[in-house]
């Protein structure tokens, strides 16, 4: 074993992408095993590697970690991206909750019918511009610091940048009313580890396409219609 964390997931964003972002931001090299067939998945299941029979799963520090939020919290704490005390952690958790909810609307997008996609696109933009972005815009404006929490780079900054870029992929001018977020985006993107992750050839995954959807459906036997809630 190489000692590097190893990620088990599909070759695509989904729930693993935030984990890739966080490891990359922390400057941690990682390996990936991509699930392409049902057989691979069943092998993992039979081997008892997946606590709740689900991926993401990350082998790290002798553990087979599951549950996206558990994995992210562990990485954040281990690499000092989780604030310096309980109050900062509470702020980070709160902001992450928001960006998580926002990215949740985008995560189901590729699985929706064409008609539902159109509606969902409107929902994503509306939520981003009226519920979520204004909050982070105000936070940054009010304290005038470079990072969301404690004047220090944290998980919250990484997660927000990820969310901003994802929404921009759906509507490229979505930050037009948010000057603080524009500056934030530029600033965080130029942090060396993040800059590297944003370059071609990194382990960042592209916007999910129909091939990704087919793979997920095939491996998980998830053939039912996904509805936005």
């Amino acid at each position, binding site marked *: 074993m190489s000692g590097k964390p190893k990620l088990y997931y599909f070759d695509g964003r989904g729930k693993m992408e935030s984990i890739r972002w966080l490891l990359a931001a922390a400057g941690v090299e990682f390996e990936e095993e991509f699930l392409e067939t049902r057989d691979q998945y069943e092998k993992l299941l039979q081997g008892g590697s997946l*606590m*709740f*029979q689900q991926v993401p799963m990350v082998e790290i520090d002798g*553990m087979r*970690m*599951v*549950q*996206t*939020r*558990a994995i992210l*919290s*562990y990485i954040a*704490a*281990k690499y000092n991206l989780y604030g310096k005390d*309980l*109050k900062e*952690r*509470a702020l980070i*958790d*709160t902001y*992450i*909750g*928001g960006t998580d*909810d926002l990215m949740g609307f985008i995560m189901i997008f590729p699985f929706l019918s064409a008609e539902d996609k159109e509606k969902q696109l409107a929902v994503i933009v509306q939520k981003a511009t009226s*519920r*979520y972005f204004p*909050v982070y815009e105000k936070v940054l404006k009010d304290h005038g610091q470079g990072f969301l929490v404690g004047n220090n780079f944290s998980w919250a900054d990484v997660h927000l940048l990820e969310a901003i870029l994802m929404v921009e992929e759906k509507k490229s001018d979505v930050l037009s009313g948010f000057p603080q977020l524009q500056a934030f985006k530029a600033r965080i993107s130029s942090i060396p580890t993040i800059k590297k992750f944003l370059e071609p050839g990194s382990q960042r995954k592209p916007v999910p396409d129909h091939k990704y959807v087919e793979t997920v459906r095939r491996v998980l036997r998830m053939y039912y219609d996904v509805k936005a809630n």
Partner: protein
Amino acid sequence: MSGKPRLHYFNGRGRMETIRWLLASAGVEFEESFLEKKEDLTKLQKDGSLLFQQVPMVEIDGMKLVQTRAIANYISTKYNLYGKDLKERVLIDMYVEGMFDLNELFLMYIVQPADKKEEYFANMMNKAENRYFPVFEKVLKDHGKDFLVGNQLSRADVQLLELILMAEEYKPDVLANFPVLQSFKARISNIPAIKKFLQPGSQRKPPVTEEDLAKAMKIFRS
């Protein structure tokens, strides 16, 4: 101000119930403001109390905390229900995130359309009995200790008890094949602070009824 945490939510379980359980288990007295009319919610939204315009919101230690997990994490850490180190915390987090997923299934049951309810119920109980409960049965069986993590009470134990009791409301014999969970349930229920919370007159909320839901939808979705 009393100094006690104040919970802002509907008068029902929903996403606030886990927080009530955690506070009660930690022996922390709390107050509640119930949203009964739409104006109650809009007032909170307008005065900037709700960061993302949503409840749950908990006033605690000078903060207006929102986001269920943020609130639960804060309370768990503050009252020593989150393990003693990072390795224990990640175990607790893995278990508790699985529990949140099952809880979500329970939460969404009541809003299923009539023609989908039966299938949803079967899937929900199947997950409880084949995906989630076996994991916790095995964890307890394998280490033979009284608590899920680190040989002391943590939020994982509290949240598991909460889930077991909810599952039993839907299917009284759901623990039939889980002897270790049966003794876990008895043991954790007997912890004084939890025993008190399980008694009539506590701030624990009853199961939601179709009527409650129809009423709430009428008020808040109007």
